[in-house]
């Protein structure tokens, strides 16, 4: 193992240009993938932020008793799809309206009676914020006799869902394409690095090196190329994130697990492609 590591390091020393070029190719192709991941992650984040705003508002008639209202609240909360129910009393509604709509403040304060109805604000659990569920829950809520009206942004929810579908589809297709391109570039870089040492492999076989002995330094080299390339790509992506955040708009950085997984996948892939590339040269006796 030590011998193999020494062999891999010797390759770095002997063909520095080739090693630098292949690491560069690996890091740049992974960087492009990183940029895509950053974009996809932020779009997803923005969409789920919007999604959290999906809520059903049920307006109660003024003659609903507190007891009825309380019981209904408990019942609604019991639905599996419902995350939480907030009861907004008439007084609260007035206070909120006063706060949020300052231009009407005087109108509201001049009134003898409070014209605003009490309401439930119903929020759904993640995964249930679809037009179908929203509609079904709305139908159940409106069935209470003291609920006058229930409202949710029908078109808005539908549009949000289709937007999410497009984003998810694009992530899979474009992400897959980027990953495939990165994969091909890495495999090519590794293959060139191995082919450049074909002569060395031949001579190793000639003097009686075992297949394992020949293979090991290449595997380590491929693994290191993937690892170093992955780390450089992560660093470049981070720089891009800082740059965009500083100049264009505040965006979120990728979760640490994603990064770790990507770097690990990169190094494993480097190892695997090396194994394949070397295998070509170990055919025959």
């Amino acid at each position: 193992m030590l011998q193999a590591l020494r062999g891999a390091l010797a390759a770095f020393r002997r063909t520095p240009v080739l090693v630098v070029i292949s690491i560069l190719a690996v890091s740049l192709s992974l960087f492009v993938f990183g940029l895509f991941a950053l974009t996809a992650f932020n779009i997803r984040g923005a969409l789920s932020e919007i999604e959290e705003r999906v809520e059903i508002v049920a307006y109660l008639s003024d003659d609903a008793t507190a007891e009825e209202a309380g019981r209904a609240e408990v019942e609604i909360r019991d639905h599996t799809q419902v995350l939480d129910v907030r009861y907004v009393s008439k007084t609260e509604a007035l206070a909120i309206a006063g706060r949020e709509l300052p231009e009407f403040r005087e109108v509201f304060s001049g009134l003898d009676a409070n014209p605003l109805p009490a309401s439930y604000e119903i929020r759904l659990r993640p995964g249930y914020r679809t037009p179908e569920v929203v509609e079904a829950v709305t139908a159940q809520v409106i069935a209470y006799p003291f609920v006058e009206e229930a409202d949710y942004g029908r078109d808005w929810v539908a549009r949000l869902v289709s937007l999410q579908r497009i984003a998810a589809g694009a992530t899979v297709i474009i992400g897959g394409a980027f990953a495939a391109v990165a994969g091909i570039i890495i495999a090519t870089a590794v293959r060139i690095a191995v082919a450049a040492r074909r002569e060395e492999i031949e001579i190793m076989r000639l003097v009686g090196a075992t297949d394992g002995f020949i293979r090991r330094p290449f595997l380590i080299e491929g693994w290191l190329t993937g690892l170093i390339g992955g780390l450089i790509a992560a660093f470049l992506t981070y720089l891009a994130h800082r740059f965009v955040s500083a100049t264009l708009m505040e965006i979120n950085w990728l979760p640490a697990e994603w990064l770790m997984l990507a770097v690990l996948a990169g190094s494993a892939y480097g190892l695997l492609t090396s194994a394949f590339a070397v295998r070509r040269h170990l055919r025959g006796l």
Partner: protein
Amino acid sequence: MIKLTGVSKVYPRTGYALRNVNLHVPKGSFVFLTGHSGAGKSTILRLIQMAELPTEGELRVSGTSSARLRRSDVPKLRRKMGMAFQDFRLLKDRTAEENVAFALEVTGARRSLIRQRAARLLGKVGLAARGQAFPEELSGGEKQRVAIARALANEPFILLADEPTGNLDERASRGILDLFREINANGMTVVMATHDLELVRRHPSYRVVELSAGEVVFDSAGTVREEAG
């Protein structure tokens, strides 16, 4: 030692490279394989290295049979053979000493021993002072000596040489052959392929096996193949 029994080698595209070759090379002998290019000299050497297997017949090298060869036997066998080629096959980015050391590294020898031994081997082929030179700084004859030092690294029982003087001038060729004679005098079997008949004639005491179109047409050891008609 080395025994070819009814060996034929057929390549799918070019046909017969060897046809029914019977050859026995006893331990400690010196054999010239001669013939025009394409006669099958290199093919015999490649078969002895077990770089290829015969299409028909059997080949035995030091107790290993081509008929029952496992892939894992090949490296072990090659460590017992030294090989030298017309084009030297040295690694250009390594010094003479590192090239010799290379053959020792693959056997997993201790590093402290490797350097020592590589230097000693270079001394043996008359290149004690050139250990730190790179191949491009060496003459053809010197390169071949490095290759021979490498071939001897693992103390093989046989030295196989494929046109080792093919790229050398007469003086360098003579030097290489003297080295081979010395190696052979110490008990090692030497099989050398060459088309340089002048060189062969200068050593009449050595066995000569001549090949033509894949067949043995002359063997100074006695088993001359009768030409048809």
